[in-house]
């Protein structure tokens, strides 16, 4: 007995065992995932459901770009930010009136309280010291009598509209507040709420919304920023999993019911799909893998594939049962016939998804591996559970089985298919011609594909996050933060070079002092110069050498009296000057270079606003010189820059400075506010900076590198595009080899690849033509297209070979092929395509994309299989069936072309 037969026999006879085993399996995986999720304390050793909506995790934790992002963020004390924009378009002055500012004041005060200790005793929630609001930032302005004044921009809510407008005017004078805190049009305010962890953004936003709901004004509050988009997505994703997947299942169920008219028969595949999904998701959770945006789609991918095979099986069973009236023998025949095609369709689909495990993106790897696993589970269930299920159904289900089946509205389909068959025979070249033209158009479309992604655009237009994003980017410089790190390159350490340079400095300083008439300050310089070579000889770094020299100077100073003490004090200062010689970002030339870079970026149109240490220096300089606009400039010496910064630090939040520059002045971060979070715009800004640096060399060698969430998205997208192409190519090769093996013929193998090649080309061609960006869901669907499109071809070709062998000629085989086999393929295509259309109504764009593309893939591959393959077989019959034509003599028609 063949393996297929044995399985059919076993499943049918030991049906109760099969059913019990399936139920046990389902319970095991279902409970294994559910129990620790609901009662984590009771099951501490098991993994509960973990959600991960962080696109950063598209890169593994040790990915260099991510490590750099994390470390640099820490170096500059930057947090991920929730942006609360406040606008009021009903008033000319916008939100700058006492009532609105009182509410904004209240909101900022409230936001500062939203922190707590987490379970490890660490601070969690809002980083209150870094909160950016009118009441938490300093204003540098002109006081009375030509004095400079530092005070809170809004220490308390203003009482009059004039005062409110004065706050606006003052904020707009400060470059790093204008376009950031107060909109350039002077009508809106944005609060920047920094978080200890971006995953708290939904929680914080919810708390803020509750507070906002108590305000009675006409102004609107919009909450946005990448963290909130990502976190909100996670929350909505679960709603979608709970709605979309069951809805798709329901539609599939109704359609199958319409086709087969037998509740009992249709319930089988539905149970099968459900079990496959529960087992797969249960395994995912039990394996401790988080449910990521990708893995949340696993049910949606497994369902059509799981249903596919069982529909083929039942459709065939359905058609044959009428003739035999014997369940067991019919099932055995059907399994025997479909076993190999089903095995191969499963292997190819699984191969398509398993290939995703080769991508460098961890969530995609998990997704691919588990979908492949689910497909294998579905296959095992198809050949075991379905026969068992058919056998346990009560006999009355099968009464009048054939009679009612033939064939109300379904006959429409049958009739249509009967007309299609001959057409493929009469106009094979025309069909191939059309396919070739379509392929050419697809090629053009593919060439126009735009690779892009933007987590904010994962929400459908009209979603509050999209609205907030649009409104705020209209008013402000931009709400997408990108950061450019510029760092000075360290010089190689050479004690001799250092010693001679410092000796020079000491000699110069000594001469200056003597020239100033302070001869009494010279002696310590002479002593230090004498000690210098020996003191630094064995040091290993600049810092170590300077520390050693500082200690010498300090000891000498402590021991000295009067003039000599002053002399050693001067030496200490000279050493300090040497230490500061490497403070690159106090160098006026370097700061002016940054000013130029910022101006240039502003002109690209992509960067709404940029802020840097240079803005701070220039603003302080202006206010020190009576606030005259002409004094908005970088002063001429490093010391002048340092003194401007010292002045700035006499403000309320002095540590703000370190968000722009490290305390050693060897590294700065440039804050860019992009008006768009599209990856392609971020890439354009990358290119712009590269071009600028190439054309305008900085005064000292600087290393530039990006960080920030917007940049991270670009990095993983780059990996995804390449990774997906590689995995698609890999899967393609595996499938070709499987096909050649299955049909034991290179020609047949290549033939089987035709529909899927056309399908993938057309789907991506259309994506390119309609300008839909190539993003994560689109990329992943290529694997599904590969798996599904080849399924139809396998079923059709396997049957075609068998039927052709039985009847002896393609001519005679064709009508048979366009009866049951074509019907099964068409039903399948329709069921699944229509079944996933409900996804189009999801409020999350990735789900819409998947729904639309799934439908398109099934439609195209179904049509391609039914038209293209028979047409090619018609043309190539001689080569395809070489050596098989003996049993029945060919008709003249068949041999003549």
């Amino acid at each position, binding site marked *: 007995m063949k393996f297929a037969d044995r399985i059919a026999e076993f499943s049918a006879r030991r049906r109760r065992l099969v059913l019990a085993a399936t139920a046990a399996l389902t319970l095991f995986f279902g409970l294994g995932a559910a129990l620790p999720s609901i009662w984590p304390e009771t099951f501490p050793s098991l993994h509960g459901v973990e959600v991960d909506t962080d696109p950063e995790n598209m890169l593994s934790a040790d990915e260099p770009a991510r490590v750099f992002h994390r470390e640099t963020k820490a170096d500059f004390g930057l947090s991920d930010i929730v942006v609360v924009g406040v606008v009021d378009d009903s008033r000319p002055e916008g939100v700058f009136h006492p009532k609105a500012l009182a509410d904004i004041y209240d909101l900022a005060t409230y936001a500062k309280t939203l922190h707590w200790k987490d379970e490890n005793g660490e601070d969690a929630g809002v980083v209150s010291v870094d909160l950016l609001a009118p009441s938490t930032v300093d204003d540098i302005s002109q006081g009375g009598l030509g004095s400079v004044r530092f005070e809170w921009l809004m220490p308390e809510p203003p009482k009059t509209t004039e005062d409110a407008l004065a706050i606006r005017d003052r904020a707009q004078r400060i470059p790093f507040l204008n376009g950031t805190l107060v909109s350039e049009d002077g009508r809106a305010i944005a609060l920047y709420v920094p978080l200890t962890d971006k995953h708290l953004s939904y929680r914080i936003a919810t708390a803020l919304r509750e507070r906002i709901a108590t305000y009675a004004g006409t102004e609107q509050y919009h909450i946005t920023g990448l963290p909130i988009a990502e976190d909100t997505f996670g929350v909505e994703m679960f709603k979608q999993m709970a709605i979309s997947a069951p809805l798709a299942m329901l539609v599939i169920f109704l359609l199958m019911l319409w086709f087969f008219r037998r509740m009992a028969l249709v319930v089988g595949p539905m149970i099968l799909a459900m079990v496959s999904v529960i087992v797969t998701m249960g395994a995912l959770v039990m394996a401790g893998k988080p449910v990521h945006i990708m893995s949340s789609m696993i049910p949606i991918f497994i369902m059509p594939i799981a249903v596919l095979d069982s529909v083929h099986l039942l459709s065939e069973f359905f058609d044959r049962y009428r003739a035999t009236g014997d369940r067991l023998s019919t099932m055995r025949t059907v399994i025997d016939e479909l076993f190999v095609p089903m095995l191969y369709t499963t292997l190819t689909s699984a191969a398509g998804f398993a290939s995703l495990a080769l991508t460098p993106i961890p969530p995609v790897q998990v997704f691919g591996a588990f979908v492949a696993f689910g497909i294998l589970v579905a296959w095992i269930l198809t050949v075991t559970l379905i026969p068992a299920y058919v056998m346990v159904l009560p006999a009355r289900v099968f009464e009048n089985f054939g009679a009612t089946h033939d064939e109300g509205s379904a006959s429409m389909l049958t009739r249509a298919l009967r007309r299609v068959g001959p057409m493929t025979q009469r106009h094979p070249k025309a069909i191939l011609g059309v396919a070739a033209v379509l392929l050419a158009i697809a090629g053009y479309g593919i060439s126009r594909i735009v690779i892009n992604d933007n987590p904010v655009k994962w929400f459908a237009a009209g979603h509050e996050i999209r609205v907030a994003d649009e409104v705020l980017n209209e008013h402000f410089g931009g709400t997408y933060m990108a950061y450019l790190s510029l760092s000075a390159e360290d010089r190689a350490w050479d004690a001799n070079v250092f010693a001679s340079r410092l000796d020079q400095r000491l000699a110069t300083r000594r001469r200056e002092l003597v020239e100033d008439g302070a001869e009494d300050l010279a002696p310590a310089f002479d002593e230090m110069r004498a000690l210098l070579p020996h003191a630094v000889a064995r040091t290993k770094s600049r810092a170590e050498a300077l520390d050693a020299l500082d200690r010498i100077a300090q000891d000498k100073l402590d021991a000295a009296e009067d003039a000599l003490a*002053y002399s050693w004090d001067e030496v200490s200062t000279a050493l300090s000057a040497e230490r500061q010689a490497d403070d690159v970002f106090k160098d006026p030339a370097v700061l002016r270079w940054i000013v130029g870079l910022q101006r240039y970026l502003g002109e690209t149109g992509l960067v709404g606003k940029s802020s840097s240490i240079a803005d701070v220096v220039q603003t302080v300089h202006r206010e020190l010189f009576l606030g005259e606009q002409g004094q908005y400039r970088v002063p001429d010496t490093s010391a002048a820059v340092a003194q401007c910064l010292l002045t700035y630090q006499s403000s309320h939040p002095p540590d703000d400075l370190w968000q722009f520059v490290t305390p*050693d002045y060897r590294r700065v971060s440039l804050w860019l506010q992009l008006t768009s979070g599209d990856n392609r715009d971020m890439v354009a800004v990358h290119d712009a900076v590269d071009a600028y640096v190439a054309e305008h060399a900085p005064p000292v060698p600087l290393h530039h590198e990006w960080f920030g969430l917007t940049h991270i998205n670009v990095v993983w997208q780059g990996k995804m595009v390449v990774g997906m192409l590689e995995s698609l190519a890999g899967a393609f090769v595996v499938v070709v080899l499987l096909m050649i093996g299955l049909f034991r013929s290179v020609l047949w193998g290549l033939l089987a690849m035709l529909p899927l090649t056309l399908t993938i080309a057309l789907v991506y061609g259309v994506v390119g033509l309609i300008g839909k960006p190539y993003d994560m869901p689109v990329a992943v669907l290529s694997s599904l297209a590969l798996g599904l499109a080849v399924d139809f071809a396998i079923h059709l070709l396997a049957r075609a070979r068998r039927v052709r062998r039985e009847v002896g000629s393609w001519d005679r085989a064709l009508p048979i092929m366009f009866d049951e086999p074509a019907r099964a393929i068409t039903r399948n295509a329709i069921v699944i395509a229509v079944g996933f259309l409900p996804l189009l109504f999801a409020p999350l764009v990735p789900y819409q994309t998947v729904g639309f593309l799934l439908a398109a893939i099934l439609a195209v591959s179904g049509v391609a299989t039914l038209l293209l393959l028979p047409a090619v077989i018609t043309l190539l019959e001689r080569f395809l069936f070489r050596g098989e034509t003996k049993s029945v003599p060919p008709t003249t028609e068949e041999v003549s072309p």
Partner: protein
Amino acid sequence: MKLFIRAALLIGACAVPLAAQDEGAAKAMTVDEIVAESNRVAYYQGRDGRAQVKMEIVDAQDRTRVREMTILRRDDPAPAGADGKVPDGDDYCGKQRFYVRFRRPADVDKTTFLVWKNPGEDDDRWLFLPALDLVKRVSSADKRSSFVGSNFYYEDVSGRHTQADEHELVETTENYYVIESKPKDPKSVEFASYKTWIHKESFVVVKVEYRDEKGETYRTYEALAVESVQGYPTVTKAKMSDLRTKGSTTVEYSDVAYDIGLPEDIFTERYLRREPRKYMR
């Protein structure tokens, strides 16, 4: 806590005139008297004074910045009493002037601050930036802003007006008066209250905890070392920590001298550009 104890021991070791007061008299003091005395000990000892100050600012990432400066102080003479005589003692705690000149880092060398402290009113403040050759008046309505980027506020350096808060003696321990103070004008300050530990014999402030509206401590001051200089109990090392930013600033005072006879004109704009070298060390 170890440092706290060490500071306490050091204070105990000091020979302080006030410590000679008998216990009974000390106990009888009102809270305002305690606060006034501790204010005097902290800011008004001697008629003038000088110290070399080394300030080490450490942030949450352990990055350290060092600032070195010289501070000169001179108290205004007490006003003449009703009898037309100027009181002889050192008890007057009124206006005083500070002169702060940076030495290092080198690029802020010679940068100078001048403060005329007017208790109960706005101070007068000037700033000299040598690299910009600029003397500038600084408006100082708000004294609770950072002193040159450290965790100390201007008000910590020059002293908070004792009348700005309501004080309450909440506890008297073996060694300390523990006083809780609440601002009379809560909007003018960032704290909701602060608690001060004042050494009973020396009246040195050993610890201060600033609390927010939630009652959480977010900022602490600790005296880390106290020495007797010319008979005056003098804090020679202190630390201000910000528990929110996790940064802290430690100041060390060396070469401390009192009653050095600083002339009044040093504390004028004229000396901002030209250092009174004779008095600096």
